[in-house]
């Protein structure tokens, strides 16, 4: 989220699209109801289903899953055509005026430079025209035909209300009503917030869905302002934290990136990451990359990371592929190329698409270790449960070690919420049986391996033997120790840059925040963006001052938000070119002639003059990007693409399937179904009574929504002679499930590209462990393909067939 949950009360219009906030984030959704009750805000829901969010909306419009880009591009076109643009903001704070290289274009659903065999683009033309000083050429008048603004208008031209209706199945008048309501928020004194979640990410073009809305928000001037923003409602309680801390194949901490084989040494690695400003006087904060990287290396390997060994650069593995993401790992597993796997609090058997493939893959492992407070289908994937998990136990040669961990109530530490708040919590209960903290388990395995390497030697033991592990009790590092390590400290006395005689930070003291980090090895910090969370003032994540001056919703005294306790990202954009708030009633920070100050920590150098320095300091341009250059694999502008399994053809290019640059493995390509065999468009989602697969272990939540079901329209039920509450079988090219049918008015067939499209809604939750009734999940059916940029599986749009059926048989019954 660019803004905080509590900031949503400041909005005038909430658009819930690609998400279902009321069901998935009820207590965050509270702030929507607050905005409605006290600001007269309106709520729009655009979703294939009439959700519980829709039940309290002011306006609901149906849409076919996987067609969001067409809808959003349509809204952008509507706003531009009707002059509903926050002109001043758009001109000053986006790259609308930047001139794009000749040669860049878009035709038949493809951008310039497509190579069908590589399934990739040559992106050389997707860039700005540069002048001799290496600065991008711009035309502030927006007259230049090749400026981003004009290219965007050209790109959006086809997205008429008629095309939106044809592609999305959204009746024209409903689309226009939504577009009209949204366009009102182009006024500097009206803001709209976008609340989205996996409804946008779980598509083969998920990143582009989000880009489209982000661009709309920029055109309307809604980024960086109170009650605005792009608010990604993250899933798990610390999914934000784990991403921030780089627990991903392609990341290091704080969004530093993993080296690839091209980065032959540290210098080469840094050369592609120290982004120089593309406009005079811009900040381009990543110029500090080296400070953060060196401090990170010092946190990992301490004294073993020295200038003369490239800060132990070689200790970090180098990637030969963009990422060993989940899908790639399970593909490799399936090919028998993976021997061991560790699942810490993760249940891939139910979480990843194509369950049959996942179980087959796990069955090829030599060993599997699971760490979890609860039973999981993954740790018992080898157990036969009749139709619910029909495996041949004897033939599965995988050794499985299941380790019991503590849960939230029995451990201490911080979680980073969707609003980037790092909130500390304390342990209140004793663990059951012999359950242990994850930190203890990780430490034990690490120490034992280190011991083995000491004794036996082995492959490249250096990073293990030199790992900095100087905790009071190496057997179990305490949360405080780890938090302090993340924050970082001075390794030698740090002299004040402005006055070299003064010690800024004494050796061994915590740095106040990342502004004190150095690239000479004199500082260490595990994760630079978290620096400031636990400094010499103490544990700022444990702060509990809930005062909120003038009720802006900032709560600066409550815990700690990264970066630098900043609550609203890009908040400098809440003020105009003179540094005055666009909307005085919604001021965040203002320029008083010498410095920035206000209710939040300024997202700009405090003394950066409003006219000179752009608000988007992490970008080389200093402005936001309507045109993404070569940074997105599937295009600098969002373009409509169908899901890989779609009931209709892509109207821009009827031969094109899915996302033309998305990675598809051979075996999975063969498992893609077509609409003649699988005529119905399925989507997956979570119900408010449940949290993923955990709550089926909870008697209360199990009672509130006990049994697996699929939702279909009355029309489809009639057509297929399916009765409400009766059993149905739903199957795709990859698997089959049995469920109760819930026939509802909340799902209606849509007319897309001239033919009716029936939607089958498949909630996720059920498995074969826990207190709820045994059942299945949508991942038994979904396709094993991911987003072109970040490989998030396309779990929200796939094709199925459906028929009346009988109850599934459990093991006891089947033998």
């Amino acid at each position, binding site marked *: 989220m660019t803004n905080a949950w509590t900031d949503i*009360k400041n909005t005038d219009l909430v658009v819930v699209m690609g998400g279902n906030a*009321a*069901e998935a984030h*009820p*207590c965050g*959704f*509270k702030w929507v*109801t*607050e905005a*409605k*009750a*006290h*600001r*007269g805000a309106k709520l729009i829901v655009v979703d294939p289903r*009439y959700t*519980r*969010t*829709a*039940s*309290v909306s*002011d306006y*609901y419009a149906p849409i076919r899953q996987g067609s969001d880009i067409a809808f959003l591009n349509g809204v952008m076109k509507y706003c531009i055509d009707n002059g509903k643009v926050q002109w001043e903001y758009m001109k000053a704070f986006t790259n609308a005026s930047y001139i794009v290289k000749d040669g860049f274009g878009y035709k038949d659903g493809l951008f310039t430079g497509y190579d069908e065999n590589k399934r990739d683009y040559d992106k050389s033309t997707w860039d700005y025209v540069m002048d001799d000083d290496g600065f991008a050429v711009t035309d502030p008048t927006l007259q230049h035909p090749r400026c981003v603004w004009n290219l965007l208008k050209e790109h959006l031209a086809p997205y008429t209300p008629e095309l939106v209706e044809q592609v999305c199945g959204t009746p024209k008048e409903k689309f226009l009503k939504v577009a009209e309501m949204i366009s009102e928020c182009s006024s500097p004194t009206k803001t709209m917030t976008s609340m989205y979640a996996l409804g946008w990410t779980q598509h083969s073009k998920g990143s582009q869905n989000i880009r489209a809305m982000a661009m709309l928000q920029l055109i309307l001037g809604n980024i960086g302002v109170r009650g605005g923003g792009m608010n990604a409602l993250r899933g798990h309680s610390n999914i934000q934290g784990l991403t921030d801390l780089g627990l991903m194949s392609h990341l290091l901490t704080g969004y530093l990136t993993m080296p690839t084989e091209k980065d032959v040494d540290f210098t080469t690695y840094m050369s592609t990451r120290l982004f120089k400003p593309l406009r005079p006087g811009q900040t381009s904060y990543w110029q500090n990359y080296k400070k953060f990287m060196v401090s990170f290396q010092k946190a990992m390997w301490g004294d073993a990371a020295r200038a003369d060994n490239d800060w132990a650069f070689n200790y970090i593995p180098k990637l030969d592929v963009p990422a060993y993401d989940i899908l790639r790992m399970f593909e490799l597993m399936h090919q028998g190329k993976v021997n061991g796997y560790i699942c810490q609090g993760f249940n891939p058997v139910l979480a990843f698409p194509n369950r049959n493939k996942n179980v087959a893959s796990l069955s090829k492992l030599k060993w599997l270790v699971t760490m979890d407070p609860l039973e999981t289908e993954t740790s018992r994937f080898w157990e036969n449960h009749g139709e619910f998990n029909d495996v041949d136990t004897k033939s599965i040669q995988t050794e499985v070690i299941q380790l019991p961990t503590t849960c939230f109530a029995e451990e201490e530490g911080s979680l980073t919420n969707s609003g980037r708040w790092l909130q500390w919590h304390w342990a209140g209960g004793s663990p059951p049986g012999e359950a242990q903290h994850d930190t203890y388990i990780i430490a034990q395995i690490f120490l034992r391996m280190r011991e083995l390497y000491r004794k036996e030697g082995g492959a490249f033991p250096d990073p293990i033997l030199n790992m900095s592990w100087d905790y009071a009790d190496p057997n179990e590092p305490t949360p405080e120790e780890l938090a302090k390590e993340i924050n970082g400290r001075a390794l030698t006395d740090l002299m004040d840059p402005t006055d070299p005689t003064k010690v800024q930070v004494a050796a061994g003291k915590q740095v106040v925040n990342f502004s004190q980090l150095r690239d000479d090895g004199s500082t260490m910090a595990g994760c630079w963006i978290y620096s400031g969370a636990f400094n010499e003032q103490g544990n700022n994540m444990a702060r509990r001052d809930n005062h909120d001056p003038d*009720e802006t919703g900032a709560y600066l005294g409550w815990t700690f938000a990264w970066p630098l306790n900043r609550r609203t990202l890009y908040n400098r954009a809440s003020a105009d070119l003179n540094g005055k708030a666009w909307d005085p009633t919604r001021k965040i920070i203002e320029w008083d002639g010498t410095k920035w100050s206000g209710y939040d920590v300024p997202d700009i150098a405090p003394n950066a003059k409003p006219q000179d320095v752009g608000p988007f300091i992490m970008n080389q341009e200093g402005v936001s990007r309507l045109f993404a250059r070569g940074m997105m694999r599937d295009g600098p502008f969002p373009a409509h693409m169908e899901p890989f399994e779609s009931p209709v053809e892509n109207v821009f290019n009827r031969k094109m399937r899915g996302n033309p640059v998305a990675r598809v493995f051979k075996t999975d390509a063969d498992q893609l179904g077509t609409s003649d065999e699988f005529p119905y468009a399925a989507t997956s989602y979570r119900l*408010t*009574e449940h949290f993923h697969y955990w709550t089926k272990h909870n*008697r*209360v*939540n*199990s*009672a*509130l*929504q*006990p*049994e*697996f*079901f699929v939702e279909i329209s009355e029309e489809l039920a009639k057509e297929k002679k399916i*009765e*409400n*509450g*009766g059993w149905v079988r739903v199957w795709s090219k990859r698997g089959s499930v049995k469920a*109760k*049918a*819930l*026939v*509802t*008015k*909340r799902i209606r067939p849509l007319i897309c590209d001239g033919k009716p499209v029936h939607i089958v809604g498949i909630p996720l939750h059920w498995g074969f462990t826990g*207190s*709820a*009734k045994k059942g299945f999940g949508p991942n038994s059916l979904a396709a094993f393909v991911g987003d072109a940029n970040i490989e998030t599986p396309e779990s929200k749009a796939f094709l199925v067939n459906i028929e009346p059926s009988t109850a599934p048989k459990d093991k006891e019954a089947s033998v």
Partner: protein
Amino acid sequence: MMDSPRTAVSNPPVQPMETNLTAKDMIKRSASGDLPAPERQLTPVAKLIDVSKCIGCKACQSACIEWNDTNPEVGENIGVYTNPHDLSENMFTLMRFTEWVNPETDNLEWLIRKDGCMHCSDPGCLKACPSPGAIVQYSNGIVDFIHENCIGCGYCVKGCPFNIPRISKADHRAYKCTLCSDRVAMGQGPACAKACPTQAIVFGTKEDMKKHAEERIADLKSRGYANAGLYDPPGVGGTHVMYVLHHNDKPHIYADLPDNPSISAVVQTWKGATKYAGLAVMGLAAAGTILHGLFGKANRVSKHEEQEAQEAVEEAVDHADKRAEDA
């Protein structure tokens, strides 16, 4: 910016505290006739359920189960979101889901109503209850079941205009929402209201709740719900659980919420006229017979009649003997 009423302004106390709701605060007690007026009058409280703010998340059900330590069974899906499928001794409150197509706009409206005890000012359950002190009403409006006194006859079920009480198959006692009397006694709101994410359920003095309802109704009218209104049915003397309905002109569309509830005339007769007249009649009859017994003369058999009987018998015997000889 005016803040929504808070159900809880402070976290629950953990240090021992004097309960604020005692037998002295009872104003009605089942099968006990009139109680002496309590020395103090507690401020009437109310739970306001704003159906238009409700997202049907069932947090209220969850909180209710956890606070009251009940254990609803894990049932089946029968094609509805309403789970469990009905109120029970283990489920004091229930989200009832109705898919309703508004004939005026032709738009689908998903009406979600939190069902449970309404805490009537004139409680039908209490009227029907034959067991002294099994059902009580406190001066703050809470109608509570005192399970120790419950005999499990189910008369409360028949007396309730909202079909709320349920008799436990396990211990044969009646159960329903207590409005968390144990929490209210400690100055806390009910568990459901505390949990409600959108504060569709709020709790406070009945007066404040009515004020809050007015604001909500104004907001709803501004959004085109011309018939938005407060459901506080006079037929039962008003309730201490009230609804804000977007369509207050037709409460029945919300999963059969009674349009104009009142204690059934049949129950009134049964627990009124019949009860008293019946006893009177029986008493009079008994008395009448006794008076007659005392002052009227008994019906005795006279010596003479015994004599006649004796003769009749002998005569008959002679006849019999004669016939025997003839044969």
